[in-house]
C-alpha cells in the first residue's frame, strides 16, 4: 500500500480548484476564508493521512504548485 504526502506552493496557487476535482479521494479543498498574497483562495489538503500519493493533483495543476511524495508501506 502506498502512503503519500503533498506540499502545495500556496503563493503560486490561483485557486482554480482543478486539483479538488481531480483528487480521487476527495481530500483536497480550497481553504475557507483564507487567501494568498495574490488574493486567491488556495488549495489545501484535509484528512492528510488518507493520501496515497497518486499525483493526480500535481498532474492536473496548471501552475505546477503541487509536489507529491510517496512511500510504500507494509501492511
Amino acid at each position, binding site marked *: 500500500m502506498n502512503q*503519500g504526502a503533498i506540499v502545495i506552493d500556496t503563493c503560486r496557487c490561483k485557486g482554480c480548484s482543478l486539483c479538488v476535482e481531480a483528487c480521487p479521494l476527495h481530500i483536497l479543498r480550497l481553504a475557507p476564508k483564507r487567501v494568498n498574497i495574490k488574493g486567491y483562495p488556495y488549495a489545501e489538503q484535509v484528512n492528510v493521512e488518507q493520501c496515497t500519493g497518486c499525483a493526480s493533483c500535481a498532474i492536473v495543476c496548471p501552475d505546477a504548485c503541487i509536489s507529491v*511524495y510517496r*512511500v510504500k508501506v507494509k501492511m
Partner: protein
Amino acid sequence: MTTQDIIRPENLVATKPRLLNDLTMHYCPGCSHGVVHKLIAEIIDEMGLAEKTIAISPVGCAVFAYRYLDVDWLEAAHGRAPALASAAKRLWPDRLVFTYQGDGDLACIGAGETIHALNRGEKITIIFINNAIYGMTGGQMAPTTLMGMKTSTCPYGRQADLHGYPLNITDLAAQLEGTAFVSRQSVETVGAILKAKKAIRHAFENSMNGIGSNLVEIVSTCSSGWKTSPVQANKWMEENMFKYYHIGDIKDITKEQSTH
C-alpha cells in the same frame, strides 16, 4: 508514518518540472496553457534536449511562454511562427524546433503560414492550443468558434450565414502530404494529460528524426472568455467541443510504415 517522514527528496514523485522557472504564470486560474507548458518542460527534459531546443512563441495569451520555459525562444510576428520555425530548423537541423500557437494566431492570421509549412514537410512540431475564442483580447469570435457559441463579437451565437463555419485546421492538416503526425488531444483529466504528453513526445521525436511536419492540437478551455469557472469550462469542453473536435490521432505515418 507521519507526513514529515514522507516528505523527503528520495520519495518525490511529482513536482514542478526543472525547465519551468519560478515566475508565476500570467494565465487565468485553470488555464490549459499551464498544463501544456508543464508537459513540454517535462518532455524536453526527459529527451535531454534542454540545450538543443528552439521554441517559437506566438502572439496571443501564450506570447509570454518565453518567460516561463527555460529554453531558447524566438518571438514571431502574429501568425508567422511556422515561417520562423522553418528557417530555424533549416539553419539548425540538429535542433528541436517547435512553435506554440493559439487558435487566433494559427487558424486565423497565420493559417497561410501554417498550411504551407506543414505542406512543405518542414521538420518542425506545431503545438496548437484551440480554445475556440480569442482569450487575450477579450473573448472575440475566432475561426474555430463553434456554431451557436456566444462570444463578445457574436453575442447571439455564431451563425453560418453571418460568420461562416468553424475551421478545423487539424483535419485539414491531416490531408496534406507533408505532415507525418497529426493528433488532437486535450488536457482536462489525468488520463487525457498523459495521452497528450505521449502525443507531444511522439511529435518531438519525429521532428528530431527528420520525419515530416507534426501538428498536435490541444483542445483547451478559456474560462475567462467562456465566462465560467475552470471546472465548468472543462465540462463544457467535454460536452460541446469534443463533438466537433474529435480527440485522437488523425494521421501517423510512422505507424502506417510499421504495419505495412
